[in-house]
């Protein structure tokens, strides 16, 4: 998104370099509404060796990361945030050998808390793998020296 403010572009770059995301081979695709991230299928993500289905934790991780990004998209300035809770409903197992895409939108920001809804799918958002609901604490005023990441 070319019209994103500089700090948000910086935050995107920062969040793409997160060791966990890099370790699972994931990347941020879009810092818009919705915020979007993707993880290509790979052997190390498998949670069920007999079916080759990706571990639920990968989906949780991608949705958590994308939810945090969605909160940042809604904020007008960089602020540290922290996940309060995350609920994931697993609609169906992820098909092996296909990318997983997470799309999250921050539906409301109050002074201290941000609320997020998200979907994980494999190309068709109407056929989701999982849905998520999350709440994030916004640490206004920030904590000295802590950059904006979830």
């Amino acid at each position, binding site marked *: 998104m070319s019209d994103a403010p500089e700090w948000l572009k910086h935050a995107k770059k920062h969040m793409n*370099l*997160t*060791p*966990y*995301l*890099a*370790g*699972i081979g994931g990347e941020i695709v879009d810092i818009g509404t919705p915020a979007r991230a993707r993880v290509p299928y790979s*052997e*190390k*993500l*498998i*949670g*069920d*060796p*007999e079916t080759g289905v*990706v*571990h*639920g*934790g*990968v989906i*949780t*991780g*991608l*949705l*958590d*990361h994308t939810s*945090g990004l969605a909160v940042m998209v809604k904020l007008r300035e960089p602020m540290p945030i*922290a*996940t*309060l*809770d*995350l*609920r*994931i*409903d*697993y609609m169906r*197992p992820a098909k092996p050998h296909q990318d997983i895409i997470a799309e999250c939108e921050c539906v409301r920001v109050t002074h201290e808390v941000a609320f997020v809804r998200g979907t994980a799918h494999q190309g068709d958002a109407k056929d989701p793998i999982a849905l998520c609901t999350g709440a994030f604490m916004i640490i206004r005023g920030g904590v000295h*020296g*802590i*950059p904006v*990441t*979830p």
Partner: protein
Amino acid sequence: MSDYRSGDPAKLMEAIPYCRHLGITTSVENGALLLTMPFAQRLIGNPALPALHGGVIGSLLETAAIAQVIYEIRGERLPKPVDITVDYLRSGRAVDSYARARIARQGKRVVNVHAEMWQEDEAKPVAALRGHFLL
């Protein structure tokens, strides 16, 4: 029947590539299953703090729940998550993590599992999970 379905959680962790990626191992202490995830750089979500990624914490807790079900119930297949809720209570620091789970309710097809993760002090949990899994 595969090795990991023998009810041996250590074999289960070895058989699951994502658990190997996270470095999760299991042990049994006084008949109770304990999961250990030694700190590693690839688990970091916020390098500045540094703090573990929320997804890593969720992954460890979900794995603890699955391992507990395999350990206690020994089903014919891996339990499938239906839904999970993770409460993040404290920041996960750059140290070793531990997790334990218990089956709160076992039905014919579905189990309700609670899991907790902590670091240095079990009385100060970092995160807690509640979830349903299909047997």
